[in-house]
Structure formats: C-alpha cells, structure tokens
C-alpha cells in the first residue's frame, strides 16, 4: 500500500512537468524529512553515489558516440547495410534495422541510434515509395535496440544499482538483441510483401558496389569489435573499454577521416558532460529516494507480500513487467531503473531470480518505454527529425510495440535466450 502511494505520488509529481532530478530530489527530500524529521548525511549519500569509477563508462561511451557522429564516421554505415540487403522485399527497412543494430553496438543509447540512423534512412525510404509511417516505425523500433545491444547506458546503471556484473549483462544482451533485430527485419520483409503498401524491390548491388560500401564503413564496423572484443577477451574493464572506444573514435574521426576539428572535440566533450550531468543528477536524486524507501522498509514489505501471496518467479516477473510497462508510458528509462530496482532487488534474491535475466527483461521493457505513448523518447526523436505529426509516428511504431512484447514474452519464457551466452563464455573463461 505504501509502495503504491509512493509510486502514485511520484508519477503525479513527475507529470507536473518539473525537471525529473528536481521532482525526484524534492519528493525524496520531503519524504525523508517526513520519516526522520531531519535530513542527515544527504551530502555524503550524493557524493558517494557519484564518486563511482564504473559510472565513468557512461560519459565515455557518450563521448565516443559524439566523436563518431560529429566526425561523420557513421555516415557510411547506412550505405553499407543498404548495399547488402536492399534487393530484399522491404530491403531499405531491413537495411535500417541492420544499421540500427551496428550503431547500437557503438552508442549505448537508443535516442542517439534513432537520430543518427533516422536522419539517413527515413528520407531515403520515403523517396523509394515507402509509406512514411513504415519509415518512422522501423527507425523508432530499430532505434530501441541501442540499449539492448551492448554497450548500453541503462545496463551500466542497472548493474551498478543492483551490484550485478555489467560484463555479464552486456553479453546477455547480445542474443536477445540480435533476435529482436531479426524479428524486426522479418517484419519489414513481411510487411513489404503482404502489407497494404508494397514498395518496389530495388536492384541487387553488384559485388563491387558492396565491397566499396563496406570499405567506406570499415571504421564504423571496426570500433564495436575493438570495444566489445576487448571487454570480452578480458583486455579491458567496462570503463577502460569505454575509454578505448572514445580514444579510437577520436583518432579515426580526427586523423583518418579528418572530419573532427579541435572545436568539434571540445563541443563533443561539453555535450557529453552536459548529458552526464543531466543523467547523474537523476541518479543522485533516485539514490536519495531509494534510501528513504529502505528507511520506510518498503523493499522488505514487498518481499513479505510476495511470500504471503506465494508468488513464483514467473508470476512475480509478470507482475513487475506489467508495472514497468505502465510506468514506461509516463516515465523515461533512467527514472524507471533507479526507482524500481532497489525495491525489486530483495525479492529477486528471495525468489532466486538471476539478476542478469531480470536485467535483460527490464531492458527489453525499457525499449518498450521508448516507443509507448504518451512519453517515449524515440517518438519525440522521430517527430523532431521529421516534423511528422505525433499520431503518424505513434501509428508507425505500434507493430514494433507488439514485436517487443513478443520478444519480452520469449525472454521471460526461455531465460536461456539471455543466459546461454554469458554462461558459455564464462565456462570458456
């Protein structure tokens, strides 16, 4: 009951339109004052949460993506995927999903994926006779892969808040990410073949065209290999992999492509610092809220409730996923991770639920949050880059909401989709 009241109050405060960090911080501060009659050690709590070496991975991955976008290193990515698959039915849609999949392995952000790939793919799809709604949908849906395919900012946050191995989470995201990408691509093909609008199939690219496109996109394709390969082979920690990626992106964009000026480097750094400040102020405020909820024994009471109701793993996860799906309609992904994880964590332990499995389920659900109205960051992104009516964008992404729900159901029913690869790699190690 207390949890429902707090969640309800929080959603109401956030819907009031205040900046999320301020709404969360003042709400949590007010609750803490109500519970304890004073504010104690809040400064230490905030400083301690921010002073975390692992968290540095997030601004560094952001910096890496900024270098690659400003240095126009990723501009040829869509050209390469286009040359490889454009002859398939719905080929440009499939190429868009493929470009999103590769960019997801660079950026760790869904919004960055949707902006970067969308800017190239949407005009091209519309020019070749695709229904605009289809183009918005494939970029909106494909863009969500940014947080499931590693590296992933939300996974880093979940890993830190829940004390789960970020490396294991990253590895666990690969198979579900590729599975969803394949499902999205199949949908594009089926829609182009059997749907109401059937865009013309484009001619197959020659081998020379394909090789030329792949050569141009070589560095975009090589950087994820460096980052993820270095991490999985144990050469780098997550933070070091982010630094190696950022440094490599800087060298490629500035030295090889010669597209990155000193001014671009500086602007990439100030933009990444601003994004990190925005994100981590929310983290600090959510940490305060988590602290208050623990003081109010809310996680403990949730464990008691689950025990009393005799819920099993699947029943509990279904209930949590339903709540997160509803929250995802109104809140953005970071707030959802930071608000729900401290509450759910003790129950995961009590029910013996693998936190890596839960982390992947959460991430797929957060992908849904990015495209479910009324609040979905990818919806806003596509509206911003196309100036299309929001209703058109929403209708476009609806098939992807259904596909992601199906993906969520698959990972829930078959945990091995997420857990097989980390288990295999650890055995190899």
């Amino acid at each position: 009951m207390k949890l429902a009241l707090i969640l309800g109050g929080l959603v109401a405060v956030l819907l009031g339109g205040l900046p999320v960090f301020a709404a969360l911080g003042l709400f949590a501060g007010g609750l803490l004052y109500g519970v304890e009659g004073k504010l104690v050690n809040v400064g230490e709590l905030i400083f301690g949460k921010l002073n975390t070496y692992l968290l540095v991975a997030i601004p560094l991955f952001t910096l890496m993506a900024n270098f690659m976008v400003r240095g126009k290193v990723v501009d040829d990515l869509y050209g390469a995927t286009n040359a490889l698959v454009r002859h398939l039915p719905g080929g440009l849609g499939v190429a868009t999903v493929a470009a999103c999949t590769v960019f997801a392995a660079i950026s760790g952000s869904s919004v960055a994926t949707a902006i970067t790939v969308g800017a190239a793919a949407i005009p091209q799809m519309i020019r070749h006779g695709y229904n605009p709604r289809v183009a918005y949908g494939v970029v909106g849906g494909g863009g969500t892969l940014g947080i499931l395919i590693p590296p992933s900012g939300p996974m880093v946050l979940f890993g830190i808040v829940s004390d789960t191995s970020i490396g294991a989470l990253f590895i666990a995201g690969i198979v579900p990410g590729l599975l969803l990408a394949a499902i999205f691509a199949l949908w594009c093909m089926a829609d182009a073949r059997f749907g109401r609008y059937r865009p013309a199939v484009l001619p197959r690219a020659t081998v020379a065209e394909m090789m030329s496109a792949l050569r141009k996109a070589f560095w975009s394709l090589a950087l994820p290999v460096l980052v993820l390969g270095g991490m999985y082979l144990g050469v780098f920690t997550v933070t070091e992999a982010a630094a190696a990626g950022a440094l490599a992106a800087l060298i490629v964009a500035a030295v090889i492509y010669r597209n990155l000026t000193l001014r671009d480097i500086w602007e990439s750094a100030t933009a990444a610092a601003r994004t990190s400040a925005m994100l981590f102020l929310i983290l600090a405020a959510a940490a305060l809220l988590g602290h208050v909820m623990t003081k109010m024994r809310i996680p403990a009471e949730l464990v008691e409730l689950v025990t009393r109701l005799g819920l099993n793993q699947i029943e509990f996860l279904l209930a949590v996923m339903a709540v997160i799906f509803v929250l995802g309609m109104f809140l953005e992904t970071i707030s959802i991770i930071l608000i729900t994880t401290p509450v759910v964590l003790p129950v995961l332990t009590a029910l013996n639920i693998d936190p890596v499995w839960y982390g992947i389920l959460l991430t797929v659900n957060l992908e849904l949050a990015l495209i479910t109205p009324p609040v979905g960051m990818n919806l806003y992104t596509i509206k911003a880059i196309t100036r299309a009516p929001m209703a058109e964008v929403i209708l476009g992404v609806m098939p992807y909401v259904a596909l992601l729900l199906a993906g969520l159901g698959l990972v829930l029913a078959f945990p091995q989709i997420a857990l097989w690869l980390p288990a295999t790699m650890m055995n190899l190690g």
Partner: protein
Amino acid sequence: MRRFLLGFVQAAGLLTRIGSAAGALSLLLSLGLISYSVVARYVFNMPQTWVDELVGYLLVAVVMAAAADAQRVGEHISVDVLVERLPQGARKTVTAAGLAASAAVGGFLVSEGWAMVAFSRRVGEISTGHLEVPMFWPQLLVPVGGALLAVAALAGLARMAAGLVPFEPHESSADPEAGR
C-alpha cells in the same frame, strides 16, 4: 530593473560556461588518465591504481560542473506530456516552477554539501584509496556545483522576468538576448 536582470543573466551565463569548460576538461582528463593507465599496465607492467580514485572524483567534477550548463540550455529532462496541453500562461507558470525547483535543489546541494565538507574537515577525513587526499577537497565539488546550478536556474527566472525565453540556445553567444 530589466538592465539589472540582464546583467545577472550575463554574469550567470559566464559562470555556467566556466563550469561547462571545467566539466568538459574533467571528462577529457578522465579519458587521458584511463588510457594512460591501460598503456602503463600492458606496455610497462606498471598498474596505476591511483587513477581509479582520481577518475571517480573527476566524475563528480563532470556532473557538478556541467549541471548548471545543462540547466542554462534547458537540457534537464522533464515529463511534459500534460504540460504541453496547458494554455500558454499556465505553461509559463510550470516552467517558472521548474526553475524554482531546480534552484531549490541547488540550494539543498549547497547546504547539505557544505555540512558534509565541514564535518569532513573537522574530523580530518582522508580518502581510503591510494591518493590519501583530505576528503573535503573533492567533496567541495557538491556545494560549488549546487551553487552554480542554483545561479543558472535563477538566471532562467531572470530571463523570464525580462521577457526572454527561459533557456539559452545551445552554443549561444554571451548575448543575454539570445534565444528570445
């Protein structure tokens, strides 16, 4: 009165830009330090254990220094699905309330951060890592960043009072009339 408001906006803009530069430098420095640490470990077999501790402090610097700049350009996200449906006047009120709330959180960071710094200084707290620095130095970043955030939010209110839009456009000039 308007001149005073614009003067305050200009001074606040300068302060937040200095903060932004400090945040960007801290981030680039973190990148350099981590890269150096990897090279030192693999090439020279000399692990640099102090780097992890310093990079943690630099992250606090990135966040606390750049938070005000994010405030200046309106980059702190909010849920505006309901607010968008309000009439113009009510929307302005919500924006002003958001700025006031940000200023309040900035003030909160100043008071709580200062209490932490004072306590840390009083008991002579030293970091537990390899650097063994007095903790109040990195902890000072919290009240300083809080003060910058509060100034940036108050500058947004001052811009509204002067008839300007509350947030400055990205990479704008120092002209306080920018983004009108």
